[in-house]
Every structure is written in C-alpha cells, then in structure tokens.
C-alpha cells in the first residue's frame, strides 16, 4: 500500500546532484489519486508529426507513447514497491529497487526535458542574447558548438545522451554526455539541452547513421526553451 508521500527523485542521485536535481525534479508533473502517488506522462508541446521531416511522426509516437510512457509506468511501480519496502523496513528490497528507480526516473526526467527542447522547424530560431554570447565565448561560434556537441554525442558508446549543461558552481556552459538514462544532474550540471542518442530515437529513419540524425536535429532545436532554462539556471 503506497504511502502517498512525494518521493524526491533527487535522493537517489547523490548529494552533489541535489541542488540541480531538485530544481529539475520539481518540474515533473505529479498527482496523488486515492492516496497513491504517481508521476504523469506529459503531453508533447506539439503534434507527433510536427517535427517532420527531421524526426518522423512514427518515431515521435513510439518514443513518447511507448518508451517514455514505459519509463513513467515502471518508475511509479518501482516507487510504490520502494514505499512498501520502506514501511516494512525491508532494506534488502529497498536496495534492490534502486537501479530500476535510477533508470526509469532518469528516463522520465530526461525525456520530460527533451520534448521541450524541440519544436517544429518553422518555429525554430537560432540562439541570441546572453545565451549566444556565452556559447560564442566558450566555443567561438554557434557552428563550432554544434559540431563539437555532435561529435561528442555521436561517440557515445551504446545508449545515452548528449547535453549542454550549466555548471552551477562556475556558471559556465559545458558539453557532457551520459550513459543510458543517467541524469545529467548527477554530474553537477543543470540540463539545458539534451539530445537522445538511444537507437530508438532515430533508428527507423536514420538506421545506423547516427551522425546524420545529429546533423539534422539542430533544425528542430527550440533555442527559446534552452534560453529559458539557461536564465533559470543562472538565477
């Protein structure tokens, strides 16, 4: 029987991650129905076909309604089992559930950010103002930034993500990659822009040619959203 208590996912990501992770986790939609706590799959900010031809409607439907939905379902299941184990003081069980919470919780956090980082090509505009200045200061130009980001992200072994993040301490922008669904916050960076390079993110369209996907996706990056996250992270 679930306790209905809000479980801050940041707890599972380690001390160093707390400020960054807490800010992130608090943005996730959450509801309590009949005393049972549950994270919710967010709607996309656009139709599933809105990112064509860069990302097909078929991929977006699977990615959102199957993959992300499964992370949410499995996260809620693991958290409910964890709450039970905790109330039964079953430490072994609690420990055994942590990998499922980390994986599915990370998957939920990452995809929740990802959908907002993208927008239809017709609505996409390059970065400007403070964000552009910071990118140019660090990498020389927007083109050099995207080339560096794409190269590092293409090199991720197996499944993972490429990220633009803000180092909370130095206030500097950094490019980082993470394996599987490991959340960026665990590296002490606030996520601003994430690109999913699990094969499910591109395979039906781009097959094995991950670099082609990484070249194309810049056309549908929602820099306005990235700028909003940048502003919030610096505050």
């Amino acid at each position, binding site marked *: 029987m679930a306790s209905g208590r809000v479980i801050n996912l940041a707890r599972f990501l380690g001390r160093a991650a707390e400020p960054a992770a807490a800010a992130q986790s608090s943005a996730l939609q959450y509801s309590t129905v009949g005393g049972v706590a549950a994270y919710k799959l967010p709607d996309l900010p656009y139709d599933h076909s809105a990112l064509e031809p860069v990302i097909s409607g078929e991929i977006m439907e699977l990615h959102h309604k*199957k993959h992300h939905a499964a992370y949410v379902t499995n996260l809620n299941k693991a958290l409910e089992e964890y709450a039970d184990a905790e109330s039964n003081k079953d430490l072994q069980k609690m420990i055994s559930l942590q990998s499922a919470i980390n994986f599915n919780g990370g998957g939920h956090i990452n995809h929740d950010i990802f959908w907002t980082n993208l927008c239809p090509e017709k609505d996409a505009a390059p970065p400007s103002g403070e964000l552009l200045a910071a990118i140019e200061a660090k990498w020389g130009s927007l083109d050099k930034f995207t080339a560096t980001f794409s190269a590092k992200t293409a090199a991720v072994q197996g499944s993972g993500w490429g990220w633009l993040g803000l180092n909370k301490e130095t206030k500097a922008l950094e490019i980082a990659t993470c394996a599987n669904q490991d959340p960026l916050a665990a590296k002490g960076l606030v996520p601003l822009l994430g690109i999913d390079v699990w*094969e499910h993110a591109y395979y039906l369209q781009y097959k094995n040619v991950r670099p082609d996907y990484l070249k194309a996706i810049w056309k549908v990056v929602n820099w306005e959203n990235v700028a909003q996250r940048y502003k919030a992270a610096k505050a």
Partner: protein
Amino acid sequence: MPFTLPPLPYAMDALEPHMSKRTLEFHYGKHHQAYLDNMNKQIAGSELEAKTLEGVVLSSWNNGSPTPVFNNAAQVWNHTFFWENMKPNGGGAPSGKLADAINASFGSLDEFKAQFKNAGATQFGSGWAWLVADKAGKLTVEKTPNAVTPLVEGKTPILTMDVWEHAYYLDVQNRRPDYMNTFVEKLIDWEAVAKRFEVATA
C-alpha cells in the same frame, strides 16, 4: 593483415519471419561491417594486427580500462558469435548432455528461458544476454553492457542474444520482450550451443 567478416551462416532472408531480411541487411551489412572496418582502421600498423580476434579483444580490454579498440573488436566477436547461434527453423529444445546441464543448473528449460529473458530485459540500455559454461558443466546466465563479453572474465559463453535496440527495432520496435520470446522459441540453434558446451567441458 586486416581482419575480414565471416559470411553469414545463412541467407539474409533465411531467418524470416522471425528476424527480417531488412534487419539482417542492416545488422550484418552495416553495424557488424562498421565495427570491423573501424577496428581495422584502429589497429592498422600495430602489433594487434598479428593477433587473433580474441587476442585483440582481450588485449584491448586492458584489464578493465578498455581502449577505443575494444568497443569495435568485441562487437565484431560478439556479432559473429550471435549469427552462429541462430538458424532457420531454430528453437525447440536442447538434448543430451546440454539438456541435462540445463536441468541441473536451472531446474528446467523453462526456468532457464525465464532467467535468460530476464537478463535481456534488465540489461537497461544496450548489451547482451549470455549463457556461460564452466569446465565442470555448470551453466549460468549473465548480462553485459554495450560491447562487454564474458570472454574478458575468462569465461566461456555458449549462447548469446543481442539486446541493442538495432537488433530488433525494425521488426518489433520497442517490444523487446516480443523479440526475446521469438529468439528463444524460434531462432536458437541448440546444436550449435551443444557443440560449444562440449568444447567448454572437454
């Protein structure tokens, strides 16, 4: 001398309807081939060229701090192994000493299948599920991430299932459990597995 890919043990459409020709064209023709081409580029002119493929895998594993060569070399090895343990009209059940060993180690074939599929399901991200044999004939199910293989722990795998998404995405998309059921029930070449078991326990 650069390494070359052994040909597939069967035609690209031979595993249909369980694994499509389209999947084989990409999985063998692009993924496996790319691992090989990239490995050859990386080892050109080095002493690794003179080793066997297993030698390159073990050397590049570098005792747990793998070099960039490892990801390609191990994937070349893993995929060749993978093709060899499937056949058209595969599945069914093992017999003889292998069947006895499965019963001894797992209780039943069904229990082995459940554990094997669970390993594939809980390998979050990319990786492989394995059946491994020791010299005494004891069998265990293992899972490894990305390119890692039981070879690097000095173990002898006798069966493997690729759970990288590219192995099944064109055919069943996100439905990894469906892929694993099909692999176990319709694709495993139990005779090939039995031969490896014999070698492992010789």
